[in-house]
């Protein structure tokens, strides 16, 4: 299966590159083939995962840069299998959708998307710290270039939002880069072994808590900015405004999840002491993101930003799940990553369709009344919005339930505050739907409208089918990561518990006895 693993990364990239060489005629075809093939490979790989086992199901470890101890070590395990599958799915939908607009889907653009896909997949499957960091930084660049398409006007500030996207998010990434190097070198000093960036080797040896703290700080800078978490979200409104929508769908759906994944893959296992020390900070950041994001999403008039701020809030939930250091929270975070991505993609598609029906206007106060003119669109919109606000019965609800459950076990107050966000989510999602689709016709909406075409219907049907799967059988998404997520939170979790016990707190996080047993 290692061949498939390589093909997973290489095939979309190769397809994109050949498309670049082949020109306008073949590039779309190759892009479709590449993304589809990646999806098939991801599915094959995901099937290899044994849910009861947290070790890698498919593992490839080859030398890359021996001179500085960096290896090309990639693997599929329970933690990343579902996310990898998700990534290929989202990229496939996004790429196919892009093909609708030949102006947009130039060979260069398709190759950029392919680079993005390879980088994101690389970050998910990386088992080497430098490889992870490299992919983490790299995945941003294609989207910056794509966002650059929309950088309007001349003068200094016209390219500002794109520049901000690049610089702001890379600040964090570069810090993480330094921290990664420091982590490996210091670990090597501790163990007396030659420097290696292989995660498996790093997991065993934990650093002194004081060292962990500054390293975690750098990792946090990278992850929190990329997610983004309030107040580190300053880059995203501009970026959301300039990015073409198909790319935005991918960007909003996937890139933030890599950061969330990074917490589980890197931060929690490698820096347990620091994570436990700063758990409260993370919880508070998560809560602030949830409430703040929801409130602004509820207030703003730009649909893109509603989407964006709601993502901030939802990412807050993911962070909340992670910071619970509880298996349920971690499972919830991973599953929320999946469900949120699956809902963002159709949401962006719908946003595009709505704006198309309003002459390109993207202002909520000028929209309205589209439902009457486009009943199919309206129905699909409704389904997506219901998933978006985590209606019980959807996969998104299961994810939020697990997140809140995990947090409840350690800090009920945080779960209670977070649940305000659940109500607010309903408020902004419905406000968006009502504002866009219902009530009387908005100023920008023409008298006679048309419903959506077959291509969009197909795309939305696919997305909604995916949503239906996670709604009906959430277990499909939860099962593979069961053991792996438990393993990921275990170091920090056990540390947290021992500290609590030492502190004489009798009610340790409220995990039932047998559950604590199963954590081991």
């Amino acid at each position, binding site marked *: 299966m290692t061949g498939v693993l390589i093909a997973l990364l290489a095939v979309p990239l190769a397809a994109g590159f050949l498309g670049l060489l082949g020109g306008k005629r073949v590039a779309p075809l190759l892009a479709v083939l590449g993304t589809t093939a990646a999806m098939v490979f991801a599915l094959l790989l995901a099937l290899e995962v044994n849910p009861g086992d947290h070790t890698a199901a498919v593992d490839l470890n080859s030398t890359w840069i021996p001179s500085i101890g960096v290896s090309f070590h990639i693997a599929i395990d329970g933690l990343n299998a579902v996310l990898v599958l998700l990534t290929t799915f989202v990229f496939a939908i996004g790429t196919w959708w892009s093909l609708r607009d030949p102006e947009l889907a130039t060979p260069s653009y398709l190759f950029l998307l392919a680079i993005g896909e390879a980088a994101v997949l690389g970050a998910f499957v990386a088992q080497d710290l430098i490889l992870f960091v490299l992919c983490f930084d790299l995945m941003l660049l294609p989207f910056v270039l794509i966002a650059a398409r929309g950088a309007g006007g001349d003068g200094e500030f016209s390219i500002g939002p794109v520049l901000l996207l690049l610089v*702001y998010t890379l600040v964090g990434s570069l810090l993480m880069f330094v921290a990664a190097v420091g982590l490996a070198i210091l670990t090597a000093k501790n163990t007396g072994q030659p420097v290696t960036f292989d995660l498996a080797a790093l997991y065993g040896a934990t650093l002194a808590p004081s060292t962990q703290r500054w390293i975690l700080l750098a990792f946090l800078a990278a992850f929190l900015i990329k997610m983004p978490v*309030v*107040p580190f*979200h*300053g*880059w995203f*409104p*501009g970026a959301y405004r300039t990015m073409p929508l198909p790319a935005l769908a991918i960007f909003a759906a996937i890139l933030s999840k890599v950061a969330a994944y990074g917490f589980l893959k890197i931060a929690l296992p490698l820096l347990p002491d620091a994570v436990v020390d700063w758990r409260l900070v993370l919880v508070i950041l998560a809560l602030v993101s949830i409430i*703040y994001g929801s*409130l*602004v999403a*509820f*207030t*703003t008039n730009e649909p893109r930003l509603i989407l964006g701020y709601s993502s901030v809030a939802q990412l807050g939930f993911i962070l909340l799940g992670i910071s619970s250091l*509880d*298996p*349920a929270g971690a*499972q919830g975070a991973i599953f929320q990553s999946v469900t949120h991505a699956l809902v963002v993609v159709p949401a962006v598609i719908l946003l595009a369709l709505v704006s198309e029906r309003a002459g390109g206007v993207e202002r909520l106060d000028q929209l309205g*009344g589209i*439902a*009457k003119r486009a*009943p199919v669109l309206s*129905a699909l919109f*409704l389904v997506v919005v*219901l998933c978006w606000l985590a*209606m*019980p*019965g959807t996969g998104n*609800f*299961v994810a939020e*339930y*697990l997140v*809140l*459950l*995990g947090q409840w*076990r350690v800090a*009920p107050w945080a*779960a*209670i505050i977070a*649940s305000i966000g*659940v*109500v607010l989510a*309903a*408020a902004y999602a*419905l*406000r968006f739907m*009502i504002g866009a*689709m*219902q*009530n*009387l016709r908005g100023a920008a909406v023409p008298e006679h409208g048309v419903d959506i075409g077959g291509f969009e219907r197909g795309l939305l049907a696919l997305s909604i089918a995916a949503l239906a799967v996670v709604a009906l*059988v*959430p*277990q499909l998404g*939860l*099962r593979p990561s*069961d053991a792996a*997520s438990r393993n990921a939170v275990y170091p920090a979790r056990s540390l947290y518990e021992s500290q609590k016990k030492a502190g004489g707190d009798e009610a340790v996080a409220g995990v*039932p006895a047998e*559950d604590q047993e199963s954590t081991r």
Partner: protein
Amino acid sequence: MTSTVGTLAWLVLLAPLFGAISIGLLFKQLSGRAAGALATTVLFTSFALSVATLVALQSEPEESRQVTANLWDYAVTAGLDVKLSLLVDPLSVIMMLVVTGVSSLIHLYATAYMVSDEGYNRFFSYLNLFVFSMLVLVLGGNLVLLIVGWGLVGMASYLLISFWYRRKTATKAGIKAFLINVFGDVGIVLGSFLLLRHAGTVDYLELFAKAEGAFAAHPHDLTWGLVLILLGAFAKSAQFPLHTWLPDAMEGPTPVSALIHAATMVTAGVYLIARLHPLFELSDVAATVGVVIGTITLVMAATMAIVQTDLKRIIAYSTMSQIGYMVVAVSAGAYTAGIFHLMTHAFFKALLFMAAGSVIGAMGGVQDIDRMGGLRKALPFTFACFMIGSLALAGLPPFSGFFSKDEILGGLLERGDWYTIIAAIGYLAALLTACYSFRAIYKVFYGDLNEETQQIADGHHLHFAPANPSTGEAEDYEVGFPGKEHHTAEENLPMKVAMGTLAFLAVVAGLLQIPHVTHVVGDFLHPTFHASELLEQTEASTSTALLGMGLGTLAALLGIGIATQLWLKKPGSTAGIQAKLQSLHTLLSNKYYVDEAIDLIIVRPFRWAGAVFERHTERLVTQTAVVGGSSGVVRIASALVRAAQTGSVRIYAAVVSSSTAAILLYALVVR
């Protein structure tokens, strides 16, 4: 894997889902009444399957009448074990029967009532979806599935309240209902965590089995968990202070009001408390909270109903009030009575709404009872149905409401202690109930014909230019607004059949459970409540039962008498009373200012915060603080460096030389 009962239950559940999805997918193909016919057929099938389930369950021995039917793992991870499972026991079966039965009739009614609406297909798709959701709620075998059903009914309710989505008032009412219900959902979610924490399971049967042991050491957690769950129950069942959405929910089409906001969904809270009764019996505090809130609601709602002039809202308040009785009943341990009242209430309240719908149809959409009058002759069938419904509601023997309500109050009397006071309040509210129901009857059906109703008496329907009844905004008849034609039961057989059936049930259903005579409901429910001690305590003795029935009859008659005096005999006399009690009237007609209070305490601060964040904080975050702060230094430095770049060779040479000199100096001095 599943027994016959289980399979049947799954089929009951899936039939309406099939209906909803197929109508949804075929909405362009289905024309005329096809969608209505399909939906109704599906529902009658579902009802038939429910009856089959009942039969199958009854054929089991009594001790094994609690059947779980699993499909597949839903979410089994990290200490959570949720399977897609149904729990079929007498309680869920009775709920299933009520839901599918009443729904079938309302579907039938709606096939005619909604026929001129442009959103006909959509309506039936939603309606079927609602029934599916409600069945998930009552059949779900664990707390998580309950929450799923709970959320889904809220969603369906939202969809149907804002069915006429181009009306701003409708979408507003919808979002309000939805948000309050989500708030309740959150309560149940958080409550479930507390139960899960100690019992380690969300499965009902396991939970009940482990509850006593698990919570012995943590009584407070149990109480808190149940109080949180009660939040959900109160939100769904429109109990104080989460009731404000229900009157607004009358924005929805009348069949919706009949089905969701009277017969089925709003009673979910009662079902929930009954379902979790083994837990409530372990926590006095939680049960007391239920009793107190139920009592407050039943009085409040009854008083508000007296001053309402909107026909549907009067019935809506009466619904709140009646659910208050049920909540009191199940919280106090009178489970049989509560569920029995739930059932009879479903019949007569659905009937009342249907009749109201017929009246509104004749009035061309007008709901204001001040504009009605003398319709007794013009709408005889409707009048008869409305009268039967009102008599049942008022609790006059031998109508169904009499027996069920009095079983509740009798149970409370029997339990004694402070419950006696609750019972007294209950009787007082019963008086008010009779009073406002007959106020509506007198104002709508009695009195003189006015200009408008005269036309109805002449055999015409009223027609008005399409407009929103609450705001007067002009509308059209397109999709998203109510249809052009309105319908009355007099002209439409399906409506007549549905109302007739319910009227019959409203009259006779009480006979199922006459104190010390018949025990059909109680016996049937016994397997569910067999372990309950409270149930026995609330089993009214003969004397109490007789006392209760006497008091009940008296209250009802008194109420009707007052109404007759005020609105039939001396129609103008209320103005004087109103003038004397001006402040009270203002308080009541403003619904105790609960809406305003919620707006002030919750809605406005959030809106304000959102506006401040968006307008000010965001700019700070995106521009000034983070970016500008750091780049400002850089920009200044950049300006300095570029200013130094004068372009003059001589200055450059001077800089080079002085730098060299500095290095030289360093070398000579520092070394």
